[in-house]
């Protein structure tokens, strides 16, 4: 039974999150500032922390740094700050994911589940040499099966080929034309949006929020790339 700590100085938000995560499988802890969060993290064996950044006494960044000294459990930051610099700081200090306020309940539960699956299944299951893994995405080239955080997703053959191409070259930016010639094995005529449409569909299947993808990034004006999940 995963232990989840919810930490926010706004009691209403903590209560709302408790209701969303009121799965009988979860055991929930609550804290209202960074100090309490650190204390609970030291006392209990936690599996995931949802934590606000702006809090009294000790802020989320400091608390996270403190917790990271001892544990590598997934930490999701909740933040009202949508500034890029704040996100980058949070991820660099050791957050696994972040959710900007105001968030939707579905998004929170989806991200919590995703992080938990990855954390609890990490190291389990052997990988065949034909298996690619980027963050929570696993692609087995033998069975042609793709799972995201352990959940099987159904892809069309072209979508599968595109994902395989990207996963085989993590970090590399492919232009739409390159993807077309490598996947369709044809010379691209003119420029059409076939590749863009396929990528869009692929993101809808793989990402929690296709508008703000974690893995399959759109480098606008250049192409597409797959990046390793956060915190890896």
């Amino acid at each position, binding site marked *: 039974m995963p232990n989840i700590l919810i930490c926010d100085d*706004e009691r209403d938000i903590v209560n709302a999150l408790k209701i969303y995560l009121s799965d009988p499988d979860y055991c929930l802890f609550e804290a209202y500032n960074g100090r309490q969060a650190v204390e609970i993290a030291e006392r209990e064996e936690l599996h995931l922390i949802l934590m606000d950044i702006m809090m009294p006494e000790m802020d989320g960044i400091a608390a996270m740094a403190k917790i990271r000294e001892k544990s590598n459990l997934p930490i999701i930051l909740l933040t009202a700050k949508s500034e890029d610099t704040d996100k980058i700081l949070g991820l660099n200090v050791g957050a696994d994911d972040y959710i900007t306020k*105001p968030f939707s309940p579905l998004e929170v539960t989806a991200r919590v589940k995703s992080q938990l699956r990855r954390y609890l299944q990490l190291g389990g299951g052997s990988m065949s040499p034909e298996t690619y893994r980027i963050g929570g995405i696993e692609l087995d080239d033998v069975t042609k099966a793709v799972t995201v955080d352990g959940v099987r997703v159904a892809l069309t053959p072209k979508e599968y080929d595109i994902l395989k191409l990207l996963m085989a070259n993590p970090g590399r930016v492919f232009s739409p034309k390159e993807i077309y010639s490598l996947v369709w094995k044809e010379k691209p005529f003119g420029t059409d949006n076939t590749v863009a449409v396929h990528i869009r569909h692929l993101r809808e299947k793989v990402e929690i929020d296709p508008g703000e993808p974690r893995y399959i990034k759109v480098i606008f004006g250049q192409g597409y790339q797959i990046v390793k999940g956060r915190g890896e």
Partner: protein
Amino acid sequence: MRRFFRSVPGKVLLFLLCSISAILLSLCAAGAIFMIEEDFYTLSEGAIFDDAMSSMLRSSGDDYLLDIFWNDKPGVYQFSETGTNVLLQVVDVDGKIVGQSPSFEETGDSWSYSYDYLMEVSRDEEGHAYYVDVYDVYHPQEASIYAQNEDSEKEYFHYTIHYRFKVGFPSQDRYRLAYQAVHLAYGLRYWVYVLGILLGVLALVSFIGLLCVSGRRPEDQELHPGPLHKVPFDLLLGGWILAFGFTIFGIGDVFGRNTESFFLLLGALVVCFNLALGLSMSVACRIKDKSLFRNTVIAWLLHLSWRILRSLGHGCVAVFRGIPLVWRTGLVLLALCFLELFGLALFRFDTDMRFFAWFLEKLVLVPAVLWIALSLRRLQKSGEKLAEGDLSYHTDTRGMFWDFKRHGENLNSIASGMTIAVEDRLRSERMKTELITNVSHDIKTPLTSIINYAGLIGAEQTDNPKIQEYSEVLVRQSERLKRLIEDLVEASKASTGNLEVNLSPCEASVFLTQAAGEYSEKLEKANLELITKPGPESLRIQADGRRMWRIFDNLMNNICKYAQPGTRVYLSLEEQGNQAVITFKNTSREPLDMSEEELMERFVRGDRSRNTEGNGLGLSIARSMAELQGGTLRLSIDGDLFKAILTFPKL
């Protein structure tokens, strides 16, 4: 020690020390000079003594001869030996002894001198001598010529006197004194230098000490000038020079060269020296409080005349500057004309001088005109810089005068005033952005709760279906509010340039295909057909992908919202000269009854009734983003045809 010398007794001691040692030093120097003159350093003591004795003895011969002449007793005259060390024998021209000291023969002849004298006897008709004179004779023949001259009324006698001294100079007379003096001086002839050096050092040290302590008191470090300090220095110096001049030219000349006048002169010199010493102390004191030159009549006069001249000059300049610039220029030119005319008239007949005067005038005039031109050029440059908007440019007013300087300073104050205004505006913009950011942050936290609890209400199991509906409205409207807040922050940042932009070269056509791909479904849902016309693939521009996406996102969103369903939407890329032009074309669902400029304004929406989704910030953000990346966004409305035109410089 230091305290002692600063006290009155200490100063008096130093003064006396200095004065006395200096006087003694001058005596030493005089002695040394005297001894050098008298060959003390080349001759033996005996020789010097000889010299001294010979001159003394030779000059005393007449006394002895007169003693003999006026003697009535017959026979050899016997000189008295008491009170004198001189023994003598007087012999006439025939070798006959006419007078001698009784013990002359008994004395040794270690000191013996012989001199010839000529006695001139004037007699009256009765044969009585009424006048007798004695001359020193240096050549015996000369004396005998006189003696044999019988034509004269005068009688001449030629004598030789042999002198000797008593052994050991037992009597107290001037010969003994001379002997002792020579002996003493000879013994001291080298010591005089040692003594002189010592005295010199002493005088110098005490003099320096005197300068140091002048004006000081033992109790503190302050300067306490004496009453003399108030007297102008040049008066004091003048007084001293008068005193000294009187000493040299007055006393030295009026009285003859006798002993009294000599001592008077000496005394006056000593007084002068002591006055000079006092004057030096005063000088030291004046130097210490830096009033040596200031406290003089000359300085006072100079200062007065300088002030008069300066105020005169200032008055003239003020009057001149009071005249308006044009009149002033005219006056100067007029004066110049008159000057030229005057020169021409003056050197009417002298071609050389005329040429020289012309040359002289140009020599002055050309630099002056060049200087004016230079000043004007500087002012012109400064004005140009200001016009270009370079407010940091500072007009260099060094070397400028009068109106030029004033003009330059005016330009500088304009620049600084404008700089302050610009800074103020930037600061207020920045503060506005910060305010919006902070407020949005504070709104987001309660908004989170609203969204979440609205969702929770909807999730509750109730029999009333309206609750579900109402909660959906709450969620939808909260989401709108969230988006509005985010857009607001972005719009304010974009318009004030507070956004980071990372430009990199991009293929313009890729934007089109990617945007088309991303929006294919949404367009389908809106029943729109997208037609992309990607231009040449090689067309590249400098852009920041994320910012560019925001532009495309906003424009495509607008199309989805406002385009007439069932129509075609065109997205095209063209190359026009140096520009890459991306055009979004669609047919509006509603009639567009507002201008392009109005549409770009913040919070203005395509439908005045405002019943569609959106907040009216999209186009404004898109335009700001385009401008941040060095491009432009224009709108064009032709009936229902709506065009958004993005222009970026081609790479």
